């Protein structure tokens, strides 16, 4: 339904409608003009004819006039012509017309009698034109001619107009609708193509056909814009990476100096404690830079050299064992639910890193006493791994943002962390062609990694 109204909203449809209306109006004007011209010409001809005939009959002597009047009727096979002879008071004397219509003035101009004349030959009452003339003996001669033919011509022209209109307007509308369908289909294709771009995948481009029409020109402009945006974002990222890379060496040296200095103080001295705090901060900085560089390393990694058949269940068991003590220390339950899973093609180390991040995150954001579930489920196009927690959850409007670098939800600013964990997971998922889904669980957040079979990617 929506598509249908969309169809009529397009430029082509509008043009077709406007053009069609003009065409119809023009057609009406032209045919009206023809009708008017034809009708007035026919009327003039009939009037002249009737007038001249009436004059002619007055000039004849009585017997000749009778003959002429009979011929006048019988020459016209369709009884178009009729006459009537009346005395000076209007009483019918001869002829088929039996009453003198009041509209027709004697010796006046030719008049129209739309309702027809009273006749004794049973001829139908149709519109006629008539003229009455007074003969030299005082009698009145009325001659009439059927002019319904003019109306009939009008009807024929009107019918022609209607047929012509319908034959023009219907295919026009149909053609217009068909014409708009093609471009609209492309608009829909463009809409489809923009969805991943809006989700942040800037490598996507709008489809451009070989036609090079207006839509293609627009798509080309948008694509050029996207190229530029991608380049700028890449530059920003590159600058970030360079800063992280360049700052790592001096930071490492700084850390070494602090460490050496710390060794010179007593373990219980206040200097030692201060320097220890310095070390913790430096380590936090270094870790953040390391994570940042790790992400760009993962994002730049296109090859799948490290890919091998790996046992997902084994990896999940390892991650579970790795984090179980941490969860228990925080009074949390960490449960692992494993159905039998097929082997998948992946990089074992990267998957360990990804799940480790997911589980570590879930534990971090779940309050003490909560629970974290690692659930695997098999699916036709590759297994799913859900990590569900009973934490505050991730608001819908922040679900895309949390996979961005450094993004941290407002609600968890107080929790220590770099905001890079999910970016790493997202980068690893991207490298494998997997998808990371963020949703609600019954208690908190659910982060799912769909390990789609690499062979299908």
């Amino acid at each position: 339904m929506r598509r249908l109204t969309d169809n009529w909203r397009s430029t082509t449809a509008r043009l077709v409608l406007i053009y069609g209306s003009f065409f119809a109006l023009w057609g009406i004007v032209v045919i009206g003009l023809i009708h008017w011209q034809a009708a007035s010409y026919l009327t003039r001809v009939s009037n002249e004819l009737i007038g001249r005939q009436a004059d002619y009959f007055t000039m004849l002597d009585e017997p000749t006039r009778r003959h002429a009047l009979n011929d006048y009727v019988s020459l016209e096979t369709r009884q178009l012509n009729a006459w009537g002879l009346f005395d000076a008071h209007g009483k019918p004397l001869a002829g088929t017309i039996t009453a003198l219509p009041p509209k027709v003035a004697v010796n006046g101009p030719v008049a129209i009698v739309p309702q027809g004349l009273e006749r004794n030959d049973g001829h139908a009452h149709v519109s006629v034109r008539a003229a009455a003339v007074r003969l030299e003996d005082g009698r009145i001669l009325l001659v009439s001619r059927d002019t319904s033919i003019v109306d009939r011509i009008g009807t024929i022209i009107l019918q022609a107009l209607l047929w012509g209109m319908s034959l023009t307007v219907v295919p026009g509308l149909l053609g217009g609708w068909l014409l708009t369908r093609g471009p609209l289909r492309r608009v829909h294709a463009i809409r489809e193509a923009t969805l991943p771009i809006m989700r942040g995948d800037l490598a996507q481009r709008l489809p451009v056909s070989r036609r090079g029409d207006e839509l293609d020109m627009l798509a080309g402009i948008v694509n050029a814009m996207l190229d530029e945006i991608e380049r700028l974002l890449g530059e920003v990222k590159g600058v970030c990476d360079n800063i992280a890379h360049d700052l790592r060496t001096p930071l490492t040296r700084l850390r070494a100096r602090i460490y050496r200095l710390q060794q010179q103080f007593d373990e219980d001295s206040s200097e030692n404690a201060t320097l220890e705090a310095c070390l913790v901060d430096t380590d936090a900085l270094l870790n953040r830079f390391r994570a940042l560089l790790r992400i760009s390393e993962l994002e730049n990694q296109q090859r799948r050299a490290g890919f091998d058949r790996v046992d997902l269940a084994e990896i999940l068991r390892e991650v579970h064992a790795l984090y179980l003590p941490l969860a228990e220390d925080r009074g949390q339950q960490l449960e692992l639910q494993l159905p039998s899973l097929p082997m998948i093609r992946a990089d074992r180390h990267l998957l360990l890193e990804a799940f480790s991040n997911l589980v570590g995150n879930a534990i971090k954001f779940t309050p003490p006493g909560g629970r974290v579930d690692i659930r695997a489920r098999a699916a036709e196009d590759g297994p799913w791994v859900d990590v569900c927690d009973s934490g505050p959850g991730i608001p819908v409007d922040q679900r895309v943002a949390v996979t961005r670098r450094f993004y941290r939800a407002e609600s968890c600013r107080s929790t220590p962390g770099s905001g890079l964990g999910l970016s790493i997971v997202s980068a690893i998922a991207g490298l494998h062609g997997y998808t990371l889904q963020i949703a609600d669980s019954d208690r908190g957040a659910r982060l799912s990694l769909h390990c789609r079979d690499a062979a299908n990617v």
Partner: protein
Amino acid sequence: MLAAFLLNDTRLMPRVLVIEDDDVTAREIATELANHGIDADRVAEGREGLARAADPGYDVITLDLMLPGMDGLSVVTQLRAQGIATPVLMISALSDVDERVRGLRAGGDDYLTKPFAPDEMVARVDVLLRRHRQQAQQTLLCVADLELDLVRHVARRGDTQLSLLPTEFKLLEFLMRNAGQVLTRTMIFETVWGFHFDPGTNLIDVHIGRLRKKIDAAGRAPLIHTVRGSGYSLAQTD
């Protein structure tokens, strides 16, 4: 200093060959090793490094992977081909797991990413030194009254048998094999779990804490020590 003290050798100072083309890094390594009582010789070029590495007097070699002349991977491959088993610590700016795997496969014993914390580097050299000296495969590890039987998979403190989970057993084995040495969290994570990513600060602490609770039970002298700013060490203090 610990390393020097622990070596049961006629030579007092262990010797390390540093094959590194960057002057600043080389000086850093040498200084840090000297601070820990380790003698360091430096070579800046790959081919020369390979020639010098044949000297059996070296206990450990640190090897930069990006070298002029001959790259680090070729150096270690040729070294192993010549039957020289001196432990090699590879140092590289490439942090990728694949690079690490390639380095270790070529014959390297450990892999450290630049930039590195000097104490981390020294800790790794220490572990390699220790391994170099412990050629014979030990089946029983002892520190004070703590015993770890690697064949029967039994841990004992005094006359109490300890029940350890498999990971805890591996962790204790690593700590005891390198008793008296500082082991960083990264080294523990890499060796015991075989993972090469940043696990977050307190994950290893929690695992060590568990092990500590089992080993250093009440009334016994603590054996696992936290080394501030670095990591952990298992040693008898008296």
